């Protein structure tokens, strides 16, 4: 033994005796842009000490398409095509605030029937988006089955959207001053404008029954699971103040206990005619965020069923000039996207296109909270928290 100590590796001995506590260096872990649970191409540069995260820096821009710039060289009707692609999970809901802002500037209003159709499709987009969240979130927590069921259920909704608009993801269905005649409605003549495809009402009713069933099932399969609760309850708590300061909106804000839903504050879609509840969480943790979205699906289905029953008749379009020119002015309109506050600030100089279009997307503000939220969390919790924010990269980067 003495021999080894005397003739052996002296630095080794001294090193071992000096540091009792092992000092470790943080490892830089690049999560994304290609990673299964970053919802596309978000990149998080995380400094991790073992499983523990010491800091996170999101890196954006892998999906940046410069829509605000592109909007400056497009005419107003062309921009609806662009904004469809911002949040592709709920394409229809993206069109609404832009159309609303433009109509406001032109001082026209869509007919009641068009408004109802818009409302129904918006709520369908919300259900479809929340289905994706429900499936994907369970997948991120580690349960593989819910996503298959959720996708199957969502397909029913997308089929309905397709039957009306002709597109599953990018409906491009709104026109300034109304909606366009539905895709499945056959040849349109001036005397016979069929707007919704035959059998749409009954199919919608059936689909909404299925949605309500699916919500029950999801509540059982995912929400009733002890492991899921253990993974999400008390994880990633966002306080009301923090959420508001960062402009976090939508179901995330409501999960933190703020009863704030832009649907109650818009005169643009006739939400005030229908009865529905706004689900609000208590703790602002991942479980609440999941649960609020689940309950919202139920409320959306109720709204759609009421809207179907009280669908007014009438034209789909108001009279608009052939070449749409928007008078000089500015308007900011925001509506409740499935992900949160979606707003367009349209600055018109009286031309064929806007002088400047500011697009306020919910996901951008929602994930700006990530560096604050993730500090000191464990790696599995990072995934749980990130998933619960339910962002779409197109919505973040625009």
């Amino acid at each position, binding site marked *: 033994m003495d021999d080894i100590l005397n003739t052996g590796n002296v630095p080794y001995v001294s090193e071992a005796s000096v540091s009792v506590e092992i000092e470790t260096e943080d490892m830089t872990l690049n999560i994304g842009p290609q990673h299964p649970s970053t919802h596309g191409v978000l990149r998080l540069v995380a400094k991790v000490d073992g499983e523990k995260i010491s800091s996170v820096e999101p890196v954006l821009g892998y999906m940046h398409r410069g829509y605000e710039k592109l909007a400056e060289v497009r005419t107003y*009707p*062309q921009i609806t095509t662009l904004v469809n692609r911002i949040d592709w999970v709920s394409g229809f809901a993206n069109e609404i605030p832009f159309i609303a802002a433009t109509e406001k*500037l032109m001082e026209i209003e869509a007919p009641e029937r068009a408004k109802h159709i818009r409302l129904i499709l918006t709520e369908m987009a919300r259900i479809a988006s929340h289905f994706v969240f429900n499936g994907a979130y369970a997948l991120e927590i580690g349960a593989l089955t819910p996503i298959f069921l959720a996708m199957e259920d969502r397909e029913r909704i997308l089929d309905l959207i397709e039957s009306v608009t002709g597109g599953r993801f990018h409906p491009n269905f709104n026109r300034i001053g109304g909606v366009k005649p539905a895709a499945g409605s056959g040849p349109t003549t001036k005397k016979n404008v069929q707007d919704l495809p035959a059998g749409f009402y009954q199919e919608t009713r059936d689909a909404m029954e299925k949605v309500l069933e699916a919500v029950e099932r999801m509540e059982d399969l995912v929400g009733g699971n002890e492991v899921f609760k253990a993974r999400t309850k008390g994880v990633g708590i966002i306080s009301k103040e923090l959420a*508001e300061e960062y402009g976090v909106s939508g179901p995330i804000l409501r999960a933190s206990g703020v009863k704030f839903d832009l649907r109650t504050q*818009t005169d643009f879609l006739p939400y005030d005619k229908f009865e529905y509840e706004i689900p609000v969480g208590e703790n602002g943790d991942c479980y609440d965020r999941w649960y609020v979205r689940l309950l919202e699906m139920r409320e959306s289905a109720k709204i759609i069923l009421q809207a179907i029953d009280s669908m007014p008749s009438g034209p789909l379009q108001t009279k608009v000039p052939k070449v749409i020119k928007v008078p000089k002015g*500015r308007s900011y309109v925001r509506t409740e996207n499935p992900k949160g506050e979606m707003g367009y600030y349209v600055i018109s100089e*009286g031309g064929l296109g806007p*002088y400047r279009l500011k697009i306020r997307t919910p996901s951008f503000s929602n994930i*700006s909270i990530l560096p604050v939220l993730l500090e000191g969390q464990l790696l599995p919790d990072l995934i749980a928290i990130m998933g619960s924010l339910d962002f779409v990269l197109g919505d973040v980067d625009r």
Partner: protein
Amino acid sequence: MNLSSNAEFIESISTKFSSVENEFDTLKIKVKPEEWVETAKILKEEFQLTYFSWLSAIDWENEVSVGDPPKESVSPHFEIVFCLSESIEGNVVLVSTEIEKEDAMIPSLIEVFAGSNWHEREAYEMFGIEFNNHPNLTKMYLPDDYEGNPMLKSFELISREVKPWPGEVDVEGMPENGSKEDN
């Protein structure tokens, strides 16, 4: 109703700030650059506008390389806008200020609203506006070695130069006074 139809709120805002506009249901306060942070503080504390929605800028310029120029000629400047709201009745206020284009600079709102961090980074990258006291004023979307500020009106869309848009096969009946009509 939408945004700013709450008469009581508009009334109280108008008494506090002199330059309040309300057009198309969009309530806007115009302030001087010096009052920028102070305004945010007042709105947050006195009017309970605690919800920070967004911040962005507008490049006012007569010579534009994309889109149409403003109808009446303007003095070139940046207009910076931020949007606050409160989460009970949904009152919304836009606050705007105008700054010079040369050495465009404005204090950062981070100390009042931490959420303005990313929005200011975006405005910095897209317009080249400096935000004082910003802890991490780096590029948001674009590569680190990217030069230029894409949202400036003087910034050209290269693809637009190569292939005029709207193209000749456009069906919607295109502008008679559009910017590019070479064919």
